[in-house]
């Protein structure tokens, strides 16, 4: 049974996020073993007033083949986590 099928998804807490995009870079590495935000499933837009607009695309596979979800591992402020979709 996969994490996705168990109803889990990646969530970015806009209150904690500081806009570094480490999650975006880590995710693109997961997908292609190289760095390119366009290939990432997580996108962060940090506007001029500090507003955070996060998008997690359907291409997110929850890093099933990694030891840990890379976006969660590399977020320096703990803003990225798994959420239970059914609970949201």
């Amino acid at each position: 049974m996969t994490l996705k099928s168990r109803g889990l998804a990646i969530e970015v807490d806009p209150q904690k996020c500081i806009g570094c995009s480490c999650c975006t870079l880590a995710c693109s590495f997961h997908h292609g073993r190289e760095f390119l935000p366009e290939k990432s499933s997580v996108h962060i837009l940090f506007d001029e007033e500090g507003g955070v607009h996060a998008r997690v695309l359907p291409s997110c596979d929850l890093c099933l083949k990694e030891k840990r979800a890379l976006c969660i591992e590399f977020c320096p402020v703990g803003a990225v986590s798994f959420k239970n979709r059914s609970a949201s």
Partner: protein
Amino acid sequence: MTNYYGYAGKILFVDLSRKKTWVESIDRYLPFVGGRGINLWLLFNLVGRNVEPLDPENVLVLGAGPMNGTLAPASGRLSIEFKNLITGGVGSANCGGRFSAEMKYAGYDHIVIQGRAAHPTYIMIQDGQVHFREASDLWGRDTWTTDRMIKEKEADPQISTLTIGPAGEKLVKYACIIGDRGRAAAYGGNGAIMGSKNLKAIAVRGKSAPVRVARPDAFMERLRVFREQVFEKSTAVRIHREGGTLGIYFLGGENRPHGVKNLREEFWSNSSIQNVTRDKFDPFMIRRHSCFGCPVYCLAIYRVKDFLCEGIQANSVRAFGSNMDVTRAEDVLHAHGLCNQYGLDTDQTSATIAWAIECFEKEIISPKDTDGLILRFGDGNCVSQLINKIVRREGLGDILAQGVDEASQRIGRGSEELTGLVKKASIMEQGMRSHRAWALGIVTSTRGVGHLRGASVLEFQKIPPEISQKVLQIEDIVNPTSYQNKAALVVWQERYKGIIDMLGLCIIPSMWADITLYTLDDIAGLLNDLTGKSYSVKELQGCGEKIQTLERAFNLLHAGLGRAHDMPPKKFVETPVHEGIFKGESIDLEKWNQMLDEYYDLHGWDRENGWPTKNTLSSLGLEEVVFRLAEEEIPIR
């Protein structure tokens, strides 16, 4: 197809006069590695000795390094090189943000901009496409509005920008480029150079060119270990996360030097300091922020009075706090924010205004010269008014817009005695009279002044001799007032800073501020896994030395700079610290000269002139420089 691991592999050339662009492979520049290194070699080869900084023939070279665009911590820095408007020598600036990464994702490691546009223009670079856009409606706008309008015009909020504000347009000599609204690439007047090219902004967005990694799994594993076992355990990182360099700067209170009242003093009491410590800026803070891919997030967004700004670091609090004797945090933040919006270098702005205030105090200038404005230390409103006058080039502001060197020549009447100039640039620092390596690093800085060449924060940290010996191979640097071993520390730091800049890393979370961070072994390991090359620590240091020596040669070729320009301003020699734990300290010229001898010896430059020698240049692979200097009949030894 060549695998450019860590590189995009291309240099983009943009000619504004002819609206032409072309691309060259990076291959033949790779001995200079990247960032500041390759920028510098391009500058050396592209700009003739007789080109004036504001001529269309001057170039702006933007450079990313191999680490940019990766997950390496604090790898968001962009290097910018050009011929310096203030010193006439090498112009070199650096800013964080997202630009360097976006350049690589768009397919370019370096961008060379030359010529002069016929009308106000901005350049939009997107995945191999370069567009010359009309910018008349942006001209006159501040840096934040310009950034916002470009994103709206291009319908892409993730675009990264380098912009100038009104200061650059009006050719204020210390105008600077601002990256992504809040990151100043200060020093050398690059904002005015951009203004002289009718270039309001450079925008970049990349979606197609990944940064490839030679040994991806090894690179990521090394990053994991580095982040978890070094970065996350660093006290410096923790403090910077709480408040940038400002968090560390005031930890010593009055028991550390401060630049006060045009640097005529270096003691600032706790009763003043307590009003502008980091927490005093918190009421204005909207939220903490970070450069691209940086887990340190040492920045914040603030709202002050009627506008937004980013910052605030220790430099700005010295610039508009202690150096103005202003103790109201809102006034300090407001002056910093104005510089942010107008595109002004805070250091030179502060030095110029503080000098004008001291001239006024000493009755060298009067209300007749200032349109009735009373100039006095401690008055934040006066500082903001002067910043506005400088940018509008109104009255005294028009004179001050030329910087202290020219303004003092124009005003005369003893105002020259109040300056603190090296290579025509103003020192706006602290510790000049008490910390020998710090002062030597600032005075010998190849870009004029400033503590981001050879000056090392380690001199403020009482590093035990066994540690400095083990890590730096330098015996003892504990006592700041001692001249012993300080030349060695400066040379070590210059090489290290060269490495940091050529790779696109940030100096803040590095050995500059914490001896455990980004050691040379860490850097070599990451770089080799990224690029697939096999740099040794010694080779990296050789690259750092090559950059430093090439800048020195550029300064000789273009501005005739040498030993005579490595001497400290009179005030730091003749006027000792008047109070506090460094009371009585000043620079001893005889010891300074001995330290300079040692400094030149370590670099392999000749003692008499402070110029690189033929042997040194050749051993660094810079034979072309020897040839060029010979062509110009410059008698290096």
